[in-house]
């Protein structure tokens, strides 16, 4: 191996390291965007709205934790527990967050699609 090729290999190696770092950063960003890390973060929970249902339908959280509802349906939905919380219209590909401050069991529904029901349990 001559100096040139060594230099080339060294540069190539550095380039590969940068490429790997760039790929890792892109992947991390992708995961963050998809809510995968958010969902796994203690104190934060995710409910997906898709197929005209809440998934999971029943979610148990601790007081002070935050729940994010993500609307993956092609039309708006609401997350409404009368007198407790109301997201109003959540447009497609948008989300709404609620910090559960009070203990209790809250049945909620979508005011636009009354057959969509969910329960939030706050311990």
């Amino acid at each position, binding site marked *: 191996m001559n100096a040139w090729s060594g230099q080339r290999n060294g540069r190539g190696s550095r380039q590969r390291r940068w490429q790997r770092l760039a790929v890792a950063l892109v992947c991390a960003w992708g995961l963050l965007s998809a809510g995968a890390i958010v969902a796994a973060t203690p104190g934060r929970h995710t409910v997906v709205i898709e197929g005209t249902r809440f998934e999971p339908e029943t979610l148990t959280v601790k007081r002070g934790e935050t729940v994010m509802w993500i609307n993956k349906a*092609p*039309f*708006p939905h609401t997350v409404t527990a009368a007198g407790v919380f109301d997201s109003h219209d959540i447009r497609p590909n948008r989300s709404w967050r609620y910090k559960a401050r009070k203990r209790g069991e809250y049945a909620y529904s979508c005011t636009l*699609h*009354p057959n*969509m029901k969910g329960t939030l349990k706050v311990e």
Partner: protein
Amino acid sequence: MKSLSIVFASALFLVASGAFAEGAGPTDAQIAHIVVTANQADIDAGKLARSKASNKDVKAFGKQMVTDHTGVNKQATALVKKLKVTPEDNPTSQSLKSGGVENVKHLKTLKGAAFDKAYIDHEVTYHEQVIDAIDKTLIPNAKNAELKALIVKVRPAFVGHLEHAKEIQATLGK
């Protein structure tokens, strides 16, 4: 009004009875066309109800039909573009389209409570027939997994619309 519902039911019966070439069910290109046409028929009726209905629940329902079915059509259109599928016109789509036009034409001759009742009655029939066609023909015949998944995912919305329409229908006669 009943005759119009029969026209619509007949169009969807064409789907269920396999009125397609080569004795097979509809192709993906035909299914895509049927989905878009069926949604458009309800968007057109919904637009009329949104402006013409006298009952506030009927008006709100019409508005929601426009929003929801427009959303489904946007998703369906984006999918066929991605899949490079050109929706193909077919006898079922043609019947659905003419049934939708007839329905709107008839609704335009009505007003007040008569309009509200005719619109909701048709919505109940429409959603019943669409759900039937989804279950018996569209889902079983869809070959592409993404097209099938789209239909499966929107099905509960149609069920929700049907239940909602029936609830309104029950209150209108009172």
